[in-house]
């Protein structure tokens, strides 16, 4: 495993306390944060409660960040710190704290382990601040993606967010959407589920709507080099969503003339999905999904560290054709993340940038 290039698309850093963010804040925000007692607040996203079995950090017990990278033979991990500060409503406080999180990740993690790559964590609710943050950090090549949560104000294709995509495309950054909710809207059209189990299950339904939104609003046409990465979206839903899109498009394409081909052709090479957590119960179902999509080119290896979502020791689920494994493990990621794709040290380790089994 160790001699094979492995890129982990979804690797989580332990969340820093707000007090750890103080060195990265200016005097005004340091005073605000202290006076308003933010360091005493947990800032956990309620879609990932600290002790809930799907979110707690005991799954890889005894494995710290470098240990986990070693254990799974990860050459490069695109990491994120899904900090609860994104859930704040005060746009200035939120922007200051998000910037502090990004700076802390660079100093405490990217500086410490050269296998790690960063995410520019932003809030879509304030595109102007998000673009400023992208511009501030884009010079650091170790940041390879812009990161947003799955449920926010508006579907992700909405024009309000286009300045973010323009900046991401210009800097060769992928746009990643991670499961999770800001709860600016009820998580389903019919409202609020009663149980966390339901809330977790319907995250993948949010991704269906997000994919349809990127298509319908014309993001792929407007930003021809933009790459979109779905993290913890599951992918069992993908084939039937694409079937439905292709069928609906035939009856409604006059409304969305930027969709000049069937949607399933437009998403190829533009949308990527992380493996874990895998929703299929076994290899037969994994193989069926691959057959129905007709490709594995959109799948990105992920461990989802430190959430243990898989059985045994290998995050790669059974059921994929052997010939597809190197691309899932690394080659697809080089196409999903422009900054990784143009890294000669990484490209030299693969000879299969375009593998279709």
């Amino acid at each position, binding site marked *: 495993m160790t001699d094979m290039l492995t890129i982990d698309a979804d690797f989580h850093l332990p969340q820093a306390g707000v007090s750890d963010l103080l060195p990265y804040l200016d005097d005004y925000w340091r005073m605000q944060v202290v006076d308003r007692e933010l360091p005493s607040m947990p800032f956990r996203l309620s879609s990932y409660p600290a002790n809930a*079995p*799907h979110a707690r950090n005991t799954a890889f017990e005894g494995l710290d960040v470098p240990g986990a990278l070693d254990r799974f033979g990860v050459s490069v991990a695109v990491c994120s710190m899904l900090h609860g500060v994104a859930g704040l409503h005060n746009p200035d406080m939120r922007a200051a704290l998000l910037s502090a999180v990004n700076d802390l990740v660079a100093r405490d993690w990217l500086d410490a382990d050269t296998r790690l790559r960063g995410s520019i964590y932003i809030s879509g609710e304030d595109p102007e601040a998000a673009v400023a943050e992208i511009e501030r950090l884009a010079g650091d090549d170790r940041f390879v993606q812009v990161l947003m949560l799955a*449920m*926010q104000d*508006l*579907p*992700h*294709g*909405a*024009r309000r967010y286009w300045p973010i995509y323009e900046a991401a495309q210009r800097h060769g950054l992928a746009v990643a959407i991670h499961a999770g*909710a800001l709860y*600016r*809207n*009820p998580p*389903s*059209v*019919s*409202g*609020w*589920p*009663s*149980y*966390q*189990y*339901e809330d*977790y*299950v*319907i995250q993948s*339904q*949010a991704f*269906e*709507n*997000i994919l*349809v*939104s990127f298509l*319908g*609003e014309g993001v792929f046409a407007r930003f021809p080099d933009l790459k979109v990465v779905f993290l913890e979206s*599951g992918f*069992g*839903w993908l*084939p*039937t*969503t694409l079937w*439905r899109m*292709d*069928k*609906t*498009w035939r*009856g*409604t394409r006059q*409304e*969305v003339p930027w*969709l000049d081909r069937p949607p399933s052709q437009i998403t190829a090479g533009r949308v990527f999905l992380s493996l874990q957590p895998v*929703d299929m*119960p076994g290899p037969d*179902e994994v193989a069926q*999904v691959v*057959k*129905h999509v*007709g490709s594995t080119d959109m799948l990105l290896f992920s461990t989802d560290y430190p959430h243990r979502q898989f059985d045994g020791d290998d995050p790669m689920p059974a059921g994929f054709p052997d010939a597809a494994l190197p691309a899932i493990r690394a080659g697809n990621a080089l196409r999903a993340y422009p900054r990784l794709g143009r890294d000669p040290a990484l490209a030299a380790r693969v000879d299969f940038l375009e593998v279709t089994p």
Partner: protein
Amino acid sequence: MNQMLREKEGKTRLRIVDCDIHPAQRTPQALYPYLEKRWVDHLETFGPFIRQALVGQLSYPRMTANGMRVDAKPEDGPAGSSLAMLREQHLDRLDIETGHLVALGRGGMEERNPDLSAAMSRAVNDWQLAEWVEPEPRLRAGLVIPQDNPEAAVAEIERRAGDARFCQVVMSTRPNETLGARKYWPIYRAIEAAGLPLCLHPAGYSSGKPSTGTGWPSFYFQEHYTFVPGTEALVTSLVIEGVFEAFPKLKVAIIEGGFSWAPALGWRMDKHFDTFHAEVPHLTRKPSEYMREHFWWATQPMEEPKNGRHIEDIIDWIGWDRILYSSDYPHWDYDDPNHIFKFPLSPERREAVFGGNARKLYGYA
């Protein structure tokens, strides 16, 4: 067309049950004969009151003919308002043995005024009987209820229980709360007691909540898709909140909500069941087992993967005894029974999907 189907089937007549036909009133005033004067006066003064910005129209204008088949519009009303056309274009032409009415738009599904929603539901139910089912015995009515006024909904179900002209109770997949919520349990108790299936069908009007968990889409292209995750969330809710533990005889027909997503949803719920079981100890079985036992799925709009047989994989998981043919007449995305399956069906499966499964579910001979 009916000739084609008969030939494919051999000499036996294919007895089609169409699980989704939409009747329409010629005008809003067509319901007045079925309303008390108090509500006629109210409607003339205040009109309906629903949870979206625009009244009397859809917020996402459809592509053509207000979302209807252009040829289904009579001169004196909207598409779906003519029984003669329904007979000629659909029931006779395709040799439909039984057709299920799903009356959208002016029932009690969306009305905010609780007493008006109850009165409108009663009126639409009486209108279905008097103007469709009585003159055309091939048709069955779907019982419209004021679903967000559960007490009145229960009363309407109890009032009609035992009347075989109603084949099922209809609820919108855009309810005010997610359908597993305890608020709706009295309705399920009444449906179970009446021995009727529950039909879940999307309504074009808003529930008052954005149609996705991340806000309102911009285009009808997107809005059309929201019926899928919207229905997925309701199946998730009904299963996980324990409705089928509380009402073990409840049967649910998903009409126009799609079916191809069912396996992936069942897999996802099952895959995470052990992780979350402690939170939902009321569940005694894996979620997919409730899905397979309690749900039936209508075909329209049928997806068309390049390899038609991929649909076969999907139905193999759901069960060939659980698929119901539906046309969605007179809507634009209507499915013709002669063309929906892009792979050959055995005579047994053809009989089951186009009528046998529905006859078993609804108790027809």
